[in-house]
């Protein structure tokens, strides 16, 4: 997949302001960015749903503007919202897509059965997709995207709006697909999702690529992890914070107190710093209720890469996606 100077304007607004992107075959490219960064616009152009204002893009060897028909044969698309027919049973959804992809009746039937089995939906095969749970719908959506054995799969925020357990289910499925050699372009707002699934990352903001590289590389640039420390006695919170401040470890951000959850947030850049913090806590003789490490949030990623905060309301996405934006922000 090669993208060069891709531009998309909606009247005055520039949804994409010149995007370059390279995705190697069989890898997962994560596109990370807040709402309004242009991620969905990018996916819609690459999946032939939208014509770019300027620039070029080839996917699986086909030009997205000049060879859309050929391209549509080799791609799969799973949008922010499960694009399955809610009135049709799961099986009928898959059979329909199979027929539209020119499988014979027999092949389409076999493929529908096979994919339902694989995505653990066989029991629900005859029920209308509208009665499915959120996770089941996403799985059906993924199954529908896989009918034509696409070489390239677009996943546009595949877990937005899902609870953590269902999110893990979807991740597992995506990992299996990747294991089979599918090239994936994944857009997401979550650093954690990118880390779970992608090997490389492109960070977008306001229609532009602001950083790219391997996950580890970017994580290093962003500044590693955040330690969340919760003392058993909330009264020890502030003295502990002062002690850690004295230690002089400054990761990405200063030590902060999350008073609501009675926890300390300590950003660390390296394993050595992590160990030093744990040592300092021990030296204070504080009983801990819990201690955990977290990935930097999208906000922190942005702050460190761009110097400004992510998610500031920017009207760079088409009006049609306004409702998506709201839901995601919640």
């Amino acid at each position, binding site marked *: 997949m090669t993208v060069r100077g891709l531009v998309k304007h909606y009247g005055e607004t520039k949804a994409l302001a010149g995007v370059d992107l390279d995705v190697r075959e069989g890898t997962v490219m994560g596109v990370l960015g807040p709402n309004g960064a242009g991620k969905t616009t990018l996916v819609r152009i690459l999946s032939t749903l939208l014509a770019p204002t300027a620039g070029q893009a080839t996917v699986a060897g086909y030009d997205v503007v000049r060879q859309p*028909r050929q391209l549509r044969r080799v791609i799969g698309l799973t*949008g922010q*919202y499960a*694009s*399955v027919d809610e009135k049709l049973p799961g099986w009928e959804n898959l059979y*329909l897509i199979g027929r*539209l*992809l020119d499988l014979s009746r027999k092949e389409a039937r076999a493929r529908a059965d096979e994919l339902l089995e694989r995505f653990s939906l066989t029991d629900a095969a005859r029920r209308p997709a509208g009665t499915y749970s959120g996770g089941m719908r996403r799985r059906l959506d993924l199954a529908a995207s896989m009918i034509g054995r696409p070489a390239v799969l677009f996943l546009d925020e595949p877990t937005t709006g899902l609870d953590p357990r269902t999110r893990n289910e979807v991740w597992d499925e995506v990992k299996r697909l990747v294991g089979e050699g599918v090239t994936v372009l994944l857009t997401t707002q979550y650093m954690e999702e990118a880390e779970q699934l992608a090997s490389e990352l492109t960070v977008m903001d306001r229609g532009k690529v602001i950083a790219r590289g391997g996950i580890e590389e970017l994580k290093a640039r962003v500044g590693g992890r955040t330690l969340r420390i919760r003392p058993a006695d909330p009264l020890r919170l502030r003295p502990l914070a002062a002690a850690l401040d004295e230690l002089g470890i400054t990761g990405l951000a200063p030590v902060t107190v999350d008073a609501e959850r009675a926890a300390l947030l300590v950003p660390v850049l390296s394993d050595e710093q992590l160990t030093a913090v744990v040592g300092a806590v021990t030296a204070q003789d504080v009983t801990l209720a819990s201690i955990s490490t977290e990935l930097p949030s999208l906000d922190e990623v942005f702050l460190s890469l761009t110097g400004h905060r992510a998610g500031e309301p920017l009207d760079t996405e*088409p009006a049609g996606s306004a409702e998506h934006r709201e839901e995601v922000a919640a």
Partner: protein
Amino acid sequence: MSATTVPPAQTVHDARIPLRGHLRHTGALVRRNLLWIRQDPESMFDAVLFPIVFTLLFVYVFGGSIGQALGGGQEAYVQYIVPGLMAMMGMNMAQGVGTGFNQDFNSGVMDRFRSLPIGRGSVLFAKIAVELVRMLIATTILMVVGVLVGFDITNWPGLLAAVGLSAVFGSALMWIFLTLGVTMKNAQSVQAMGFLVLMPLQFGSSIFAPPQSMPDWLESFTEYNPLSSLADAARGLMVGGPVAHDLWMTLGWTVAITAVMAPVAIHKFRTKD
């Protein structure tokens, strides 16, 4: 995936879709729309109830007085209104297709269809095909109710020809409503828009009453109203009288509307953001 599963759909990625492909795609989509009806039988209410309610309403409310003007009574009006209602039926079904299509668009399914290697028109052709089936059901019910309230079927070939004419004209109109369905934001506005356009067209025509009693300006309007042509042609075919002029007018409108609106609808469908 295991090596024993079915081979990829097509290894040579040809840009052209053969006619068989178009038929297969349209057929698969027709099946989808028919399954909708099975899933949601209430969606057939309009096709079933519309002809019953309208026939009874018009025959018993207006039948007496308009029939007198026609030089008969209620029986004379039955002969007049049944072919007219057949013309109107196509209209109302055509409007429904726009609303349904719009709902489809707001569900994300259309994104998937548009990202598949199918012909640009297949999704729309399938909609029209299913709507024609609904129209035929509605027409059948109309004829049954019509006969029950006293309509004389004297000319079976003429009746079939009138049904065919209403169907082709109805499908021409569907292109207009499909375009509205793609362009407008929500189903409610499609419905409101359809209503605004259809009401004056339907009542300002010879569907319900002979235009001779209307003021001059309205009479000239009805004369050029394609719905009048369709209603008069259907009347001529079913109960006798002059046919040729209205028949040609209706076919002319059908061709003209389709030639302009079908490409517009398909284009809007493909390029919708």
